[in-house]
């Protein structure tokens, strides 16, 4: 068992659970144990209210209305930018670009930054453990520019081999794209060290924070990365919203990603001038309700306290790892020294999909599949894994339910 900063008793998980209406239900007559948080997290009442109140009371388009509602909506939307800035420790509010999520954020950087800065012979460096959304946009960029994609390998525990990573950082490495926390393995990468290495080689660094922000405090200033991507729905906010942090000088120098309304200062057929940051990258009417929900999610996480959340999840991880590893026939996939509360495993003789179906009927929701990380599956020689991923509202009792359900699977397929 790992050491904890705080006794678990200080964290009132039942009080947290009461804030999430979806958790108060049974599936197939069993209490729901929602352990698929790496796919998406559930939403607290405050987030649900923020979205519905916007539509019930203050729906209007932003940044252009001359009327009361539009002013209110604009103020509320821009207030979330300030919250988001503080939440990730950015220096300036114009460094926060609201987008659909991390996928769009990586694509934006690949296209708007990558296409104007990379050419034949240049290199993009990623790691084996990246989610497809931090692989494919770079492949597209490489195809467009003639740059080459390089991949830093991982060891049998699912950790980046730092010597190999450093060896792959070369003069022509223009962009490094690394995940903060692996969605399939749970590995917490030593991003600070990896960013420092990359920057010594003059590379621009993007950190994929999709799995991080609901579980650990992020400080882009301390990390010293150039880009950091945030997914709303993986941190208690609605789907279809997230943001990109980008270093101001870099964003300023980048051409726009999409053209349209809101991203322009003036338009004529002869010449269009673009709006200043951050609007330059926010073409079209954004997901205003989603952004307001994101603001409520940030408030909620701040209120509960990310340090307390992290301690609670670490306890769950230790407990779940111990329980699951003890089941005969289980092979853990992802055993890094530093891990988030994600437990990936396979069960001898039983395909993960079959495990998932039986767990589901026991009320235990997990993910079975390749987790949009096929290179990771290949690295570990499996077609798929079962993944239980935890969040701030999960309990040891739910880990027990998971354990019982896995034992049932074994019985069933014996």
């Amino acid at each position, binding site marked *: 068992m790992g050491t904890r900063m705080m006794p678990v008793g200080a964290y009132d998980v039942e009080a947290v659970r009461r804030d999430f209406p979806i958790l108060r239900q049974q599936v197939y007559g069993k209490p729901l144990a929602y352990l698929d948080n790496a796919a998406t997290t559930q939403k607290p009442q405050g987030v649900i209210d923020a979205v519905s109140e916007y539509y019930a009371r203050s729906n209007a388009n932003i940044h252009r209305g001359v009327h009361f509602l539009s002013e209110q909506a604009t103020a509320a939307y821009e207030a979330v930018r300030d919250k988001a800035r503080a939440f990730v420790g950015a220096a300036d509010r114009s460094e926060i670009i609201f987008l659909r999520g991390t996928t769009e954020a990586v694509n934006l950087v690949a296209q708007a930054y990558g296409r104007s800065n990379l050419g034949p012979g240049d290199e993009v460096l990623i790691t084996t453990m990246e989610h497809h959304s931090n692989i494919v946009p770079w492949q597209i960029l490489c195809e467009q520019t003639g740059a080459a994609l390089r991949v830093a390998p991982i060891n049998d525990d699912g950790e980046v081999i730092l010597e190999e990573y450093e060896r792959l950082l070369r003069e022509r490495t223009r962009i490094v794209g690394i995940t903060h926390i692996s969605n399939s393995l749970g590995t917490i990468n030593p991003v600070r060290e990896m960013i420092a290495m990359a920057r010594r080689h003059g590379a621009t660094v993007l950190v994929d924070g999709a799995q991080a922000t609901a579980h650990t405090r992020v400080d882009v200033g301390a990390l010293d990365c150039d880009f950091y991507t945030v997914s709303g729905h993986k941190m208690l906010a609605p789907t279809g919203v997230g943001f990109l942090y980008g270093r101001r000088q870099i964003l300023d120098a980048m051409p726009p990603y999409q053209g349209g309304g809101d991203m322009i200062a003036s338009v004529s057929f002869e010449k269009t001038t673009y709006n200043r940051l951050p609007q330059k990258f926010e073409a079209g009417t954004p997901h205003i309700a989603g952004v307001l929900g994101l603001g409520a999610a940030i408030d909620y996480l701040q209120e509960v306290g990310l340090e307390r959340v992290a301690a609670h999840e670490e306890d769950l991880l230790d407990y779940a790892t111990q329980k699951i590893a003890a089941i005969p026939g289980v092979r853990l996939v992802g055993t890094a020294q530093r891990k988030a509360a994600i437990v990936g495993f396979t069960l001898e003789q039983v*395909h993960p*999909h*079959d495990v998932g*179906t039986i767990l589901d009927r026991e009320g235990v929701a997990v993910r079975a599949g390749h987790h949009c990380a096929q290179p990771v599956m290949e690295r570990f020689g499996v077609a*798929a894994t079962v993944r239980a991923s935890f969040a701030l509202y999960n309990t040891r009792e739910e880990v027990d339910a998971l354990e019982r359900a896995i034992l049932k699977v074994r019985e*069933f397929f014996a």
Partner: protein
Amino acid sequence: MSELRDLYQEVVLDHGRHPHNFRHMDEASHQSVGFNPLCGDKLTLFLRYEDDVVQDVSFQGSGCAISTASASLLTDAIKGKSRAEVEELIAAFLDMLTAESPPDPERLGKLAVLSGVRDFPVRVKCATLSWRTLEAALGGTDEVTTE
């Protein structure tokens, strides 16, 4: 648990564990690769189809109990059949899992053990993967995905 027992009948579990005709075929006249991008399952179906008879059929690949059993049952079901008979079987099988009113069990024979998959919508693609792959092989397509 009873719905689970309907899904994973003993016969299904047996075919899942010890699939029939699970081998490579060098002399195949038709073959196709089926891929389920949802779960990464992949299988290759081999056919030796001559004189309007499926002379031999086999498959290889990795998949869950449902997809493996379904492929195994498929090979048993279509061996010795004419193209028209095979096409009728494909239609009956797909109807069994997806049509509003399931077909007459007479049309399906032993394949009826997979009828429980109907009640597990997310697993329908596992059961149909080999059948879609068979369709593709007969139609001369090398590759098919269930998406």
